[in-house]
């Protein structure tokens, strides 16, 4: 099963140039998660250090009190970054809207890989920065739209 993760992770643009051994060390650090539609993968208010790489399926970001989902996520998304990066509790929940396959990385594993395998660390930090840039642009647009 874990060998199957390698080509799926390779589809993330940040990981496409990693060597086979480096990609294997990334796979080694990942925990695989399979969820069905309706299953919650992140709980609002929880404190944990998991960062999720969505390999297959779709996830929805929902927040208590919000009438609509905050975001819909597809393969290639890096999910749940803010809480581990900032050390905050989860600000929203993430629910699978269809069967999904996720690679889960502990924030501490990211730190360790960043120290021990510079190419993997660079790839991971690039994936994180790319996702945060997308989030930043989305938030900026939403703010501009809503504030007129």
């Amino acid at each position, binding site marked *: 099963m874990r060998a199957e993760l390698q080509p799926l992770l390779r589809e993330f*643009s*940040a990981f496409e140039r990693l060597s086979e051994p480096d990609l294997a060390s990334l796979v080694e650090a990942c925990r695989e998660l399979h969820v069905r539609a309706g299953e919650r993968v992140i709980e609002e208010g929880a404190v944990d250090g998991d960062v999720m790489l969505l390999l297959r399926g779709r996830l929805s970001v929902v927040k208590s009190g919000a009438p609509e989902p905050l975001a819909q996520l597809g393969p290639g998304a890096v999910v749940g*970054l*803010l809480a581990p*990066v*900032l050390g*905050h509790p989860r*600000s929203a929940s993430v629910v699978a809207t269809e069967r999904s396959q996720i690679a889960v990385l502990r924030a501490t594993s990211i730190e360790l890989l*960043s*120290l021990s395998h*510079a*190419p993997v*660390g*660079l790839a991971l*930090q*690039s994936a*994180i*920065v*790319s996702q*945060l*840039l997308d*989030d*930043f*642009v989305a*938030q*900026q*647009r*939403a*703010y*501009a739209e*809503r*504030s007129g």
Partner: protein
Amino acid sequence: MFATNTQVLVTQLGQAFPRLSESLSPADVQKLGRMGDRVLLLENEDLVPAGGRLPGLILILRGRLVPRAAPDVPEEHRWVLGPGEAIGIEALVGRQPRHDSLRALEFSELRVFDAKVWGHLLERTPHIAVGFLHALARELAEEVDALAASLERLP
């Protein structure tokens, strides 16, 4: 005893970007401080002439500047950038920067990490590149979080 020019630049970098010292050792912050091109802009001066594109990551050490969006990127709103802010992070992760220039509102000092400098950093000291990205990710995460909080406060 007087501080050398390099020491002043390193101190400025550390003060403007305190997150760097959380991700890098003092010696590595010092090495980073020696890299990148130092650029000074006078009031109303543009970093890149019209038709050009931001050369890479720009760290603002002092002054106030406004970014100019690239023609193919919608201008959401104009905002003023100051010390401790970065623009053009996209260039470090293989993307095209969303802005094509910066105009100084007053005398400003920048550090420019173009593709050549970044390539040098990746090749010679990849651990510094990792720490640098880590610090930028932390800064970005704080900005995303602050924007999300502002959005929640909107009626």
